[in-house]
């Protein structure tokens, strides 16, 4: 019995406690407060809103695990979206074919990757602080994007782009499918690949990892490149959802992605954290905002409640660690 319990505990991981509890609490509170909460409509709205923030959070997750941060995620996503928008505009605009979309998406991914590669190279080779490198990359990309678009938006895409943003396959929204595939990919990457393994090790101690024969520079460059690619995917989904591209779109998600990672039990110094708890944390955040919507509050209140939730979970972790210490002290 205890063995099974141990197995479950190691499979889920200690990170799950915070978001798991929050999930139960949110479902209970809003389920009681509003009869419409536990309905298909709520889950539909969550399903459509989750992917954008979710994809950006995945992009943030890898750098945090290495002990860094990528503050350029939102503008990398914008620039990737811009790339796709241009390719579509230059090849017939509303009449562009699906093949053009694919080519544009590929270019968008390459733009995202390029932003990641530059940051990765600077961080890996100069060992400058990732917050600074990505912050200056963010300022640069924002400037570049605003320069290219003159602050306006680009729209007028073929009809199928809207389907990607709003359509469903077998009742499941397309963006959600994309997101879930990405979550699984990240789960596999972190749990089962050498790069994932190295990501955790670098997050805990870069030098010791290098002494163990790991190519830490390559790993860091790859981590930021993958982060950039994930931003590009988020940028494409954002383009499809809004049927337009605008620099600064999704800017407010930036710090929310960091919040979601911390809520999901990711260690702010790196080395520890899993994808699934972060996924649950994201669901909790969206449920919260949908629930608050139902009881008549707006997104701004939801943002504040997200902040309060993170503080609450951190205080809870503190309380638990205090209890653990006192148990050890009592010597049981």
């Amino acid at each position, binding site marked *: 019995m205890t063995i099974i319990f141990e197995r479950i505990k190691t499979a889920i991981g200690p990170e799950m406690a915070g978001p798991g509890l929050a999930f139960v609490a949110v479902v209970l509170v809003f389920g009681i407060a509003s009869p419409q909460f536990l309905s298909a409509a709520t889950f539909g709205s969550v399903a459509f809103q989750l992917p954008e923030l979710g994809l950006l959070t995945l992009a943030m997750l890898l750098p945090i695990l290495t002990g860094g941060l990528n503050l350029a995620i939102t503008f990398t996503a914008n620039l990737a979206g811009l790339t796709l928008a241009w390719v579509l505009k230059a090849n017939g605009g509303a009449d562009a074919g699906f093949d053009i979309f694919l080519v544009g998406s590929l270019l968008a991914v390459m733009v995202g990757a390029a932003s990641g590669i530059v940051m990765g190279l600077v961080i890996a080779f100069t060992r400058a602080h990732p917050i600074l490198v990505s912050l200056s990359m963010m300022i640069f990309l924002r400037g570049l994007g605003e320069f290219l678009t003159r602050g306006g938006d680009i729209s007028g895409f073929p009809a199928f782009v809207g389907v990607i943003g709003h359509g469903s396959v077998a009742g499941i929204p397309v963006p959600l499918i994309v997101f879930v595939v990405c979550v699984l990919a990240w789960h596999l990457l972190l749990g089962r690949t050498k790069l994932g*393994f190295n990501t955790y090790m670098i997050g805990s101690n870069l030098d010791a990892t290098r*002494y163990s024969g*790991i190519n830490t520079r390559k790993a860091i460059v790859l981590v930021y490149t993958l982060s950039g690619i994930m931003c590009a995917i988020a940028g494409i989904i954002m383009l499809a959802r809004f049927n337009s591209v605008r620099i600064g779109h999704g800017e407010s998600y930036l710090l929310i992605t960091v919040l979601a990672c911390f809520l999901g039990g990711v260690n702010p110094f790196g080395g520890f954290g899993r994808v699934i708890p972060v996924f649950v944390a994201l669901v909790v955040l969206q449920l919260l905002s949908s629930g608050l919507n139902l009881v008549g509050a707006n997104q701004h209140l939801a943002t504040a409640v997200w902040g309060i939730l993170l503080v609450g979970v951190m205080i809870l972790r503190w309380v638990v660690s205090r209890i653990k210490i006192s148990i*050890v002290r009592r010597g049981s």
Partner: protein
Amino acid sequence: MGLDSMHQSASAASTDKPLLSLRNINMNFGGVKALKNVSFDVRPGEVHCLAGENGCGKSTLIKVITGVYRPAEGAVIEYEGETYSHMSPVTAQDRGIQVIWQDLALFPEMTVAENIAFHEVLGGWPRLVDYGRMRRIAVDALARLGVTLDVDLPLKEYAIAQRQIVAIARALVGEAKLVFMDEPTASLTQSETDHLLEIVRSLSASGVAVVFVSHRLAEVLEISSRITVLRDGALVGVYPAAGMTQSKITELMTGKTFDQHVRARPRDDQPVVLDVRGLTRPGQFEDISLTVRRGETVGITGLLGAGRTELALALFGMLKPVSGTISIDGREVRFGSNREAIAAGVAYLSEDRLSLGLIQPQPIADNLVIASLRKILSGGLLSEDRKRSLVSRWIADLGVKIGHQADAISTLSGGNQQRVAIAKWLATDPKLLILDSPTVGVDVGARAGIFDIVAKLAESGLAIILISDEVPEVYFNADRVLHMAQGRIVGTYDPRQSRLEEIEAAVYA
């Protein structure tokens, strides 16, 4: 504890009456008894050594004396004729008890003067900083030690030896009467150590009592007048240093007798695994030529700063030699990185287990497989099952005592951590294993176990380079001993033909 007794000290400083005397010290953490009815006393102006293995209660005792911990009921602490049931950190400092922690607790970004005069000038209630007074205090304290440093430079501009001196100077500012030094020589070179011991002697001559904690027993015997030995939280005894030997102290510390014998045996018939010719990296090592045969253990000894670690890093592909050649199994190699060295069969166990050897917060299992990930791949992905079985096998092979494979490696003792570190490298199927100071931070009792593993590995055909600054370690465990000084190999010894004292005399000369 009244303030009126503050001025009794002068009369109390006679040699027969102890400065500090502890009786009935018991200390419990949870169910664990860290100190069992310990007594301890220090006479004014003496150099007293506190000896014992890791976890014997040395640092707990220091923390009781300095007021960090509060001992159980019944404790009696007498200091300068005053009796206390426990100390507080403020009382201890006010009464002239100072500790120089192993990590020094200094502030590298701040100036030397600020570091030395921190407590005097920067502590206490908020006020303006008196930079003039601060500088004077710092210069005076350094002058007492016979040292001159630029007190306005940030401390980070100075090397570890000078930082040690700054820490001592800081302890002296507070009118110290009793100074604890926790492993002060751990990262000093021999000449720096000599200078430090000189300072300790002059402190003692000026009436300051020094309690010295060091794992270097030679030093302990040289500097101290009395030795208190602790084992498993209990007092073993107090002994005069005169007439003590290193092996006797070791016996008292561990409660075991070690019959150390020379393990060297001829390996000349075996093929050469590593052949180094004229390897040079100016300023670090020069004109190094050596061979290591299959199953042979070559010991490299020499003082800190002799270039041993740099040579090892060059063999491991992490430093590029400027000239000379390295051949493995007769083929010349040039490593662009340590990955190439590992692929060629070289493994390097770092001297710095805490920050370079192992990834302390991460699981035991992950630390063990990190260098041989390709072995646990299955279909291109890491296999949890393969990892578990690989780890289980090595844990059993090397007799590592662990709770759970997923526990952080930092939960293990030094000896067990080192076994995992060795297993990590053995898992890469090396031909040559370089062990750089493998017993640092490992209990005396557990060291023998590490060397048994080394002997078994050599027996199975592994070529081993054993680096240590403790001459007896290489003397007893290597087939050949090379002496490095100032980046060069200056002597070669065969333990079967040379006496230990002969090599020690050469190394410590």
